[in-house]
């Protein structure tokens, strides 16, 4: 479970899709120390447009405690137009409409609540377009 300081630190990528582009061209979200191919460490900040496609997906019926009220829900690995690969829930859809290759758009939604009295975590999810 996230805690308030960590949540606050992650706001740039969770709220605004601020990613990094390494010298080799690889784009990653969230940020990391070294590129996925372990070839370079230098990167610049880019903001993702929030459009992409589903590479693969699954339906979660039994989730960890903080997501039990959200079940069943779809989770997909999404590749954005910039080439970043990220994991996100796909919401507001009938599961029958989910397809590998389907186009999605990233939107701003509530991710989870830290219990009845904790903070509310917001971030990106995806919808089919």
């Amino acid at each position, binding site marked *: 479970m996230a805690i308030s300081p960590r949540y606050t630190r992650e706001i740039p990528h969770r709220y605004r899709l601020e990613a990094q582009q390494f010298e080799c061209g690889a784009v990653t979200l969230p940020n990391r120390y070294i590129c996925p191919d372990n070839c370079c460490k230098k990167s610049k900040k880019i903001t993702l447009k929030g459009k992409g496609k589903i590479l693969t997906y699954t339906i979660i019926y039994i989730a960890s405690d903080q997501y039990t009220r959200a079940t069943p829900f779809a989770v997909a690995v999404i590749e954005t137009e910039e080439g970043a690969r990220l994991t996100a829930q796909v919401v507001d859809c009938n599961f029958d409409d989910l397809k590998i290759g389907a186009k999605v758009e990233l939107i*701003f939604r509530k991710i989870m609540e830290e219990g009845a009295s904790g903070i509310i975590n917001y971030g990106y999810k995806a919808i089919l377009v």
Partner: protein
Amino acid sequence: MVGIVGYGAYVPAFRIKASTIADQWGDDIVAIERGLLMKEKTVPGKDEDTITISVAAAKNAVKRAGIDPQKIGAVYIGSESHPYAVKPSGTVLVDALGIGPNVHVADFEFACKAGSEAMFVAYSHVKSGNMDYAMGIGSDTSQGAPGDALEYSASAGGAAFIFGKDNVIAEVLHTYSYTSDTADFWRREYQHYPRHGGRFTGEPAYFKHILGCGKTLLEKSKMKASDFAYAVFHMPNGKFPLKAGEILGFKKEQMEQGWLVNIMGNTYSGSSPTGLTAILDVIKPGEKVFMVSFGSGAGSDGFIFKATPRITQVQNKAPKTRDMLNGKKIYLDYGKYAAFRRKIKFLE
């Protein structure tokens, strides 16, 4: 010239039909539909709240305004369903849109008129020269107690308006507010559902304030109902706004475009603001809009807008309100609706 430079709306994809609610409680759906003129309403997804709805509407407003979000000097969200009792909704929004940190942020609350209140203050900032741009938002995920008449109307949605001086799409010609202490509808701290005064919410509350505001706004502007292409009033149900408009001299044709309540429900702070967005989606340059909100407690804010030639350049830059309402719909049965709206007790 000061006015709206960008606007946007958002409504969730989920719906519940009035007939589904009537079936649950054994109500007469024919009488309900005839009395309230309501067919269905929007329902927020499990992961949607006033903040996410405000963010979605505000992003559409920025798209239409075509401005750097950093130039927005104030953000006000009006709602009766802010997710936190203590912690602002607006701070999440400014970070999500890349506004600030040089920005003034506040959350407003005034039952169903908190949105127009936010618009009023945002407009006043720009008019006074305090800042170049300010954003006012009305957004809600309103609640009605199980079995209460409010369950047919309490829905979810919102609208955002960026006010500025340059590239105005709808000039603000006049404003007026009318307020008195009237206990027609309220929710005490720690209470999950609001309470209301039944019939007392009608003549002494809704109509007194809407008509009090509307009549003075017409007098002040030296205009008459026939001078306007469109009119929109707060929509707690289908009947009230049509009746209030008729008393003020407006014809049904002037009110139809902004009258969303039969397929959207009452989005509370987002009600008349969302209706205004549906009008701005189709309005032609030079046409005028008459808008009066209402918030229990009670008060009304009135605005007169005039579309500029620029309006046609921005209408297609973001999703249109009626397209969203008539687009993707996922219907819920009452059981799912009760779970979505946390009307049943879960293990915490």
